[in-house]
C-alpha cells in the first residue's frame, strides 16, 4: 500500500519544472501570446528532449512507456507554468488513440514522430462530450463532412477526429476539403479552432470502439484536472507570498484574519484535490471499474475548486491582481479553459450520474 508518487515520479516532475522555469515561465508565455506564435518550437523540443512527448508511447515506438499518472504529473507541471505547449492532444490523446485503435502500420508511421516532438497532433473530441448547435462530423460516402469545434492542440500537422458515431479518423492538416478556422479564447496558451470537412478523405482507426472513445475522454479529463491542480497551486502560492510582502496599516496583510481565512479556504479545498488527481490517474492505469466515474469527478471537482482558487487568489492581490503587470490572469484564464474543455462541471457530473445508473 503506497498512496503517492514514487521517487522517479517526483524526479520526473521536478525535471520538467526545472526546464519550464529555465525556459522563462511567464515571460516565455507572454512572448508566445504577444508575438502570436502558433507553436513554441523551443519548448516543444525541450519537452521532447525530456521524453515528455513520448511519455505514454511504448518504447517499441520510440517512447518511454510510462503510465497515465506520470502523464498527469507532467500536465500539472505545465499548468503550474502556464506553458504554451501542445500536450494533452499531442503527447497523450493522439498517441492513445493510435495505440488503442490504430493499425500496426499507423502506429509505426505516427508514434515515433510524436514521441520525437517532430509532429503536433490535434484532437477533436468536443462533440463526443456534447455537441453545440449543428457541430459534428459524419462519414458520408466514405468521406468526412461536418464541423468539429474546439480542437485540442489545434496548431497541428495531423488531427484525430471523433465522428458522431464514435469512430476515430486520422486526417492530415493539409487534406483537400479541410478548412481550418482559428478560434480565439481567453486562454492564449492553448491555441484552439474548428475544422470544417467538405468531403475529406481520412484514414479510419480501424479498432475504434465506444470503449476507446470513452477512455480518450476519461484520460483527457484527468489531464485537464491535473493542469488545474498545477495552475491553482501556483496561484495560491503567489497569493500567500504576496500577502506576506504587502504591507497596509503598518503590517503584512497576511496577519489579517480576513486574508488568512481566504488562503486557508483555498488550501483546504485544493490540497485534497492533489490526492484526487493522483487517484483518478491511477484509476486510469489500474482500476478500470472506477476509472470513468472517478475521471468525471476529478474534472468537475477540480474545475470548481480551481475556479474558486483563481478568483480568491486574485482578490488577495487587491488591485494588482486585476492587472497584466502581475499576470495572474494567465493562470485564471488557463483554469477557465480547463473547466470548459471536454465538458464543464454540470455536463461532467451528469455523465458521472449516468455511468452510475442515476440518470437515463
Amino acid at each position, binding site marked *: *500500500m503506497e498512496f503517492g508518487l514514487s521517487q522517479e515520479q517526483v524526479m520526473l516532475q521536478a525535471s520538467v519544472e526545472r526546464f519550464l522555469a529555465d525556459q522563462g515561465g511567464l515571460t516565455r508565455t507572454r512572448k508566445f501570446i504577444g508575438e502570436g506564435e502558433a507553436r513554441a518550437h523551443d519548448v516543444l523540443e525541450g519537452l521532447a528532449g525530456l521524453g515528455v512527448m513520448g511519455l505514454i508511447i511504448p518504447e517499441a515506438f520510440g517512447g518511454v512507456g510510462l503510465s497515465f499518472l506520470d502523464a498527469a504529473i507532467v500536465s500539472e507541471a505545465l499548468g503550474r507554468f502556464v506553458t504554451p505547449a501542445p500536450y494533452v492532444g499531442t503527447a497523450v490523446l493522439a498517441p492513445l488513440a493510435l495505440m488503442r485503435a490504430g493499425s500496426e502500420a499507423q502506429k509505426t508511421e505516427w508514434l515515433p514522430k510524436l514521441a520525437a516532438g517532430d509532429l503536433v497532433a490535434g484532437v477533436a473530441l468536443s462533440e463526443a462530450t456534447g455537441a453545440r448547435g449543428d457541430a459534428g462530423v459524419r462519414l458520408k460516402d466514405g468521406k468526412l463532412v461536418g464541423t468539429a469545434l474546439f480542437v485540442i492542440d489545434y496548431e497541428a500537422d495531423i488531427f484525430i477526429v471523433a465522428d458522431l458515431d464514435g469512430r476515430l479518423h486520422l486526417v492530415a492538416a493539409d487534406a483537400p476539403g479541410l478548412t481550418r478556422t482559428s478560434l480565439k479564447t481567453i486562454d492564449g496558451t492553448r491555441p484552439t479552432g474548428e475544422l470544417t470537412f467538405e468531403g475529406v478523405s481520412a484514414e479510419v482507426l480501424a479498432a475504434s470502439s465506444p470503449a476507446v472513445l470513452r477512455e480518450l475522454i476519461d484520460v483527457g479529463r484527468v489531464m485537464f484536472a491535473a493542469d488545474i491542480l498545477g495552475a491553482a497551486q501556483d496561484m495560491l502560492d503567489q497569493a500567500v507570498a504576496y500577502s506576506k510582502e504587502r504591507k497596509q496599516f503598518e503590517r503584512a496583510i497576511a496577519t489579517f484574519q480576513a486574508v488568512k481565512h481566504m488562503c*486557508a479556504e483555498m488550501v483546504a479545498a485544493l490540497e485534497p484535490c492533489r490526492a484526487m488527481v493522483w487517484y483518478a490517474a491511477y484509476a486510469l492505469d489500474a482500476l478500470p471499474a472506477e476509472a470513468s466515474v472517478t475521471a468525471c469527478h476529478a474534472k468537475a471537482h477540480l474545475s470548481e475548486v480551481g475556479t474558486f482558487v483563481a478568483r480568491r487568489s486574485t482578490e488577495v492581490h487587491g488591485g494588482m491582481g486585476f492587472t497584466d503587470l502581475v499576470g495572474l490572469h494567465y493562470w485564471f484564464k488557463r483554469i477557465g479553459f480547463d473547466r470548459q474543455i471536454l465538458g464543464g462541471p454540470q455536463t461532467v457530473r451528469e455523465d458521472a450520474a449516468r455511468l452510475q445508473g442515476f440518470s437515463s
Partner: protein
Amino acid sequence: MDLSYSPEHEAFRRETVAFIEANKHLAPRPGGPSPLAWQALLIEKGYAARTIPKAYGGYGAEPDILKSRIIAEEFAKAQISPGMGGQGISMLVPTLLEMGTEEQKTQFIGPTLRGELLWCQGYSEPNAGSDLASLATKGELVGDEWVINGQKIWTSTAHLAHWIFCLVRTEPDAAKHEGISFLLFSMDTPGIEIRPLVDMTGAANFNEVFFTDVRVPKDQIVGKRGQGWQVANSILRHERGSLADPNTMLSRVNALADMMKSETLDGRPVMDNPIYRDRLMQIQGRVLAMRCNDLRLLSSAVNKQNPGVAAMVVKLQGTELRHELEALAIDVLGELGLLYGDTPRLRGHGSWQRDYMYFLGLIIGGGTSQIQKNIIAERGLGMPREAKLASA
C-alpha cells in the same frame, strides 16, 4: 502508487472477516449481549486495544496501521460494534501511555479498556472556548490535596462518567500556557455538581460541571505541574481527525442516492430531478476527494512521513461537507425532511435532520472552523500571527 495489500495483510483481512462471521451473534445490540463481554472478546482476539501493551490490559501487538484500518473497515462493513470508544479509550489511554507514571498506567488503563471505567473530559469553560488556554478553574495545593473550584462546560458524558481528566490552573503567576495542570479524579468526589445541557438535536449530549472545594490527592496529576497544556494538546490533535471519517460519508452518500431513487415527487423518483441529481454528484465528488486525501494520510502514516497541510484540513473540510450532505437529504425530502422524533412518515429514523444539526455542533466543537482556518494559515501556510493588542 500501489493500492494493493501485501499477502500478510490480505490474510489478516480474511482472518478478521472469519472472526466477524463466527462471532457477530455476540455483538451488543439493544436487548442483546452486553458491550462489556464483547469488549473483552475483542481485546482477547486483538480487534480492540490492539497495540496497548499486555501488561496494561491490551492485546500487545506491534503497531500496524494497515491492520488497524482493515479491522475498522471490516467491522464497519458488517455493521457491528468495533468495541467501546469514548474519551477514556480514545484520548486518555494514549496520553497515559505517553506521559503517565507506571502506577497510573497500571491503575487506569486496564479498567478503561475493559469499559469498567468511563471518563469525561474537563477542558472548555464558559470563558475559555477557542481560547482554551485562558481557562480559570483553580487548583490550589493545600497540604497533600488539590482544592478545585470553578466550572467546566461542553462536558460530554459527565453524567455517565466515573472519572474525569481535567485541566486546572494551578500556577496563577505563570504565563497563560504554563500555569495549567492535567488532573485525574473521581466524579464521586464531594463538591461536584452536574447539570445537563440540552442541545439543538433535543438530546443532552453535554453537561455543565461545577466544582466547589473538590479535594483531589496531590499525585493524581499527569505530567508535571504546569505541563497540562502540552499533555492536552497532544490528544486534541488526535481528536480532530476522527470527527470526519470519509468512509462513513461515502456510505451516507450511498444511502442518500438510494433514498433519491425510492422517494417520489409527483409520481417520479426524486433522482429524475436534474437539480437534485447534480447536487448529489457535487457532494459525491467532494466526498471522493476527502477519501483520496484520507488514503494519502494513511499512506504517510504507514511510511512515517509528515503529511503536512493535508492532515490539517480534514476537520474543517470533513465536518462542513458532512453537514451539507445531510442538508441535501433534507431538501430532497422537502416537508418530509422536517419530520423529527417519534412520528408517522419519518424517514431514515430521523437521522438526516439529527446529523444535519449534530454536525453543525461538530463544525463548532473541537476547534471551530474559524480556528481551524487560523491554524491552517499559520502552521500550514506560514502566515504570521495577528498583531497583539497594545493593551494586552
